């Protein structure tokens, strides 16, 4: 299967500021590919260039073999897009929006009616399709947004932070839909600030930092490259500094929440016993001790020197 998204040295400059700097990657047909990055990394600018909403300053991007700069209208026939802001007109009803969207994509009336029925049913929107969008919940609007993007059966679907700001239940439903689309052969490229989202959905990811790709490739390979597992220790605040001092002798610190201390264990899990002995000798009582296999968060930390800002999980994010 040939690549459906080919990006070569893609660059976008705004005045004196380079927002996307020489980005390269490919996404194969029927794959889900995620671009991870903190706010301001250039993720949305990248998506806007690939969806023809912004002209690249230099470089090249092909979508389904079509050049975004020279044949943008042809590109728009084969792509769908869900942008960061839910892009639905709140004064219209769901059905009105579906009809309009179908017409803008040149679908015939019969096909439009059939696809509208299919998608409303698939996304659980039958019951609210006749209501104005202003009465929908955030999750329902997001599902309608996704349904609108699929009316014309796009080959490549771009999702810019598709689950940001929606409840965990709706997020899981969107994930299921993204997987189902992949299974049907649609290529999906998404940006996300949820590491768990990328971990669960994607085979390949790229980590974008200040407009440049810091790491890219298969998630499993990237995790394997991190190599060392993470030892996470929870102790009382009064002994936290001393604990960190002792742990520093076993491996480099890894970023975690403020009430935890984490280090990489280059010697593997076998080193855990030595750590416990050292803490015991220092009369430090450990509240919590856990060894975690390398995660995408660790990959991100290795690549960038810090945790992903807003690296929320499906459970904590809202």
């Amino acid at each position, binding site marked *: 299967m040939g690549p459906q998204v080919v990006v070569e040295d893609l660059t976008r400059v705004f005045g004196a500021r380079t927002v996307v700097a020489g980005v390269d990657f490919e996404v194969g047909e029927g794959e889900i590919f995620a671009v991870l990055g903190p706010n301001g990394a250039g993720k949305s600018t990248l998506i*806007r260039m690939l*969806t*023809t*909403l*912004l*002209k690249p300053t230099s470089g090249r991007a092909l979508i389904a073999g079509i050049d975004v700069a020279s044949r*943008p*209208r*042809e590109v*728009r*026939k084969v*792509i*769908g*897009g869900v*942008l*960061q*802001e*839910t*892009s*639905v*007109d*709140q*004064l*219209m009803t769901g059905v*009105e929006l579906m*009809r*309009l*969207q179908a*017409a*803008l*994509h*040149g679908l015939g009336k019969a096909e439009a009616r059939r696809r509208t029925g299919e998608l409303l049913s698939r996304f659980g929107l039958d019951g609210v399709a006749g209501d104005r969008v202003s009465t929908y919940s955030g999750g329902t609007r997001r599902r309608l947004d996704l349904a*609108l993007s699929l009316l014309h059966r796009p080959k490549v679907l771009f999702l810019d932070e598709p689950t940001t700001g929606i409840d965990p239940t709706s997020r899981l439903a969107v994930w299921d839909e993204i997987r189902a689309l992949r299974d049907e052969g649609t290529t999906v490229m998404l940006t996300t600030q949820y590491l768990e989202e990328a971990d669960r959905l994607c085979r390949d990811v790229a980590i974008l930092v200040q407009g440049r790709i810091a790491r890219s490739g298969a998630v499993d390979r990237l995790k394997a490259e991190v190599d060392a597992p993470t030892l996470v220790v929870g102790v009382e605040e009064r002994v936290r500094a001393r604990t960190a001092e002792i742990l520093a002798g076993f491996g480099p610190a890894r970023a975690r929440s403020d009430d935890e201390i984490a280090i990489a264990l280059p010697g593997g899990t076998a080193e855990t016993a030595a750590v416990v002995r050292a803490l015991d000798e220092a009369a430090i009582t450990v509240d919590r001790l856990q060894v975690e296999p390398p995660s995408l968060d660790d990959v991100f930390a290795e690549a960038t020197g810090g945790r992903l800002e807003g690296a929320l999980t499906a459970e904590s994010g809202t």
Partner: protein
Amino acid sequence: MTALLVRRSVAGMARQPGAWLPGLLFPLLIAAVFTANYGRAGVLLGLPEGASYLSFILPAAVIVGGLYAGVAAGTAVTSDLTGGFLSRMALTPMPRAMILVGPLAAAALQGLLQGSLFVLVFGALGAETNGAEAVVCTAPLLAVAMAGLTIALGLKAGTGEIMISLFGLLFLCLFVSSAFFPAGYMQGWFGAVAQYSPFTWLADGLRAGDLAKAAGTALGLGVLTVAWALSALYRTTGGEP
């Protein structure tokens, strides 16, 4: 496709009375207030002997209505911009210029309805409406011209908040024209500016029932402002028609 885009904008306007009601009521209120203030001072203001101030101010009502219709269109487009729907439309294969068809058509319809209503109401109150055809033909063109201006500036600013300031500025410009008082009554630089204000050409054309002058001015303004709006739209959506 065109019909659906127009229908969306018209339905969107109809579903928000706040978008169209002021354009119907405020010009009538202005006419009522100005006529109450200056109705007996026609000769002092330089109006011909026996001329009614109510008849004189009809073009001002049409122009103020045009400003309202324009601001409603500009607000609708900037709302699409900030709400993301403009990007959704720009992600379809239709020519990007089609994005403005709906808001401009809605503005034209609003202008037509306002112009027709003003002719009927002013006529019922005793104003001379010899130039009714000029009013009814010019009002939608003027609304489109004002819509082009507000859309262009709204897209450039990236926010609908500019509309309030824009309306205030345009409304102020009406005072530097013959909309409310004869331009010949004004003196110095004020009078010179008023002579060349497009609002003066519009108002004078409407008063004289001169369809070519009034509609031609509105059409000329419309060509310029809609071209500017299209240019702003292309820049906003990736630089491509």
